[in-house]
């Protein structure tokens, strides 16, 4: 598969592509991570987080003009995450290396995974889980994939933009009501 096709597949949330990337790089990643003092479970966990971050960066258009191969990029995310983990585990003395990473160009705009949510955000996530599928789809396309109303209309087969618009505001209203109820009840 072409790299650009892979990136396109990641953006679309194609499970097939996700699996292909996951499986085809896993052995090499585990092998590469062996030299660090981290357990295999932790490495697999980091590998999975790296793929999640890779997908997110693809969605945000941050790797549309990727200079390196996807694999190299994935590995640099992984390496960054390993360093962070080592630092957390206090096994990391190479702080300079991490600094170097943090200023590296490719990763400059790299999104952190596993960020803690604020209380409001946790509440919102809980409410979001309880929305109907239609609302989830519209809101995810808008807020996560960065689609505009017209693109959402095409993606979800709505008849016109206004329907999407009112659907979206209904969903937000529902969310707000859920939060309000929760806070008052």
């Amino acid at each position, binding site marked *: 598969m072409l790299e650009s096709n892979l990136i396109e597949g990641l953006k679309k949330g194609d499970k097939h592509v996700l699996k292909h990337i996951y499986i085809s790089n896993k052995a090499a990643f585990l092998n590469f991570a062996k030299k660090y003092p981290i357990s295999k479970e932790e490495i697999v966990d980091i590998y999975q987080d790296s793929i999640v971050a890779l997908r997110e960066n693809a969605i945000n258009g941050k790797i549309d003009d990727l200079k390196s191969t996807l694999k190299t990029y994935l590995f640099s995310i992984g390496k960054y995450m390993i360093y962070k983990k080592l630092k957390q585990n206090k096994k990391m003395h190479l702080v300079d290396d991490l600094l170097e990473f943090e200023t590296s160009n490719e990763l400059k705009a790299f999104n952190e995974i596993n960020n803690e*949510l604020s209380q409001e955000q946790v509440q*919102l996530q809980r409410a979001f889980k309880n929305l109907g599928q239609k609302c989830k789809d519209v809101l995810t396309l808008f807020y996560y994939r*960065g689609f505009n109303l017209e693109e959402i209309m095409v993606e979800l087969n709505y008849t016109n933009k206004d329907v999407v618009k009112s659907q979206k505001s209904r969903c937000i209203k529902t969310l707000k009501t859920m939060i309000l109820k929760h806070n008052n009840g």
Partner: protein
Amino acid sequence: MDKNELIASYFSKTLSKADKKVFDHLMDTDSEFADDVLFHKNLKKSIQKEEQEATKKILQDFEQEKSSSFNYKKIVAASIIVLIGLSCFWYLNTEKTNPNKLFTDNFTPYRNVVQPIVRGETDNDLKTKAFVAYESKKYNEAISYFNEVLASEPSNTILFYKANALLQINKTNDAILIFQDNLKTQDAFQDKNLWYLSLAYLKNNNIEASKQTLSKLLSNHEFKKEEAKLLFEKLD
């Protein structure tokens, strides 16, 4: 542009310069507006988290799929038990029973003759995965793999196995549609399609259709001849 539209454009990054000015001004002067923007920012963050967790879950599932290898011996043992059970039924039980019981007594999903699976094989091929799932009785999983296979390579044979899996998870009507459709083309699975279609009708309590299908099978094919005869007699 009203306030809601301003916020929407802000998030889809389509604010014009002039609108951006209005937006910034409102952020400074209108606390309700600023609160609303914060709400949307929080929503964006929580959806991001939700997506990250969902993706991670998918990856963890890949990991599990890989480690749950197919247990050959167990399947053989189970097949033998089923065979013994079925033979006992045919020899001992000649009385008329209800359609549902007849169905469960007669139905075993057709064995995999398409994709031989070697123990310990680490093939990532979709078809192999589908049949590993099928043989391990993970029918929901098998169906989604079959669907993936079918998306790239339409095949009556794969459809036939998908229908078998559908029968297992009680999606009888879907299975019937597939068998009926398959019967429109002549192929080596014609007889098998007939047998399983008759069982599917039975499951739906449609005795007349089941009998008709059985008689088609009996008059043109050898497959399951004894079983089909017995079943036909019981339904008569």
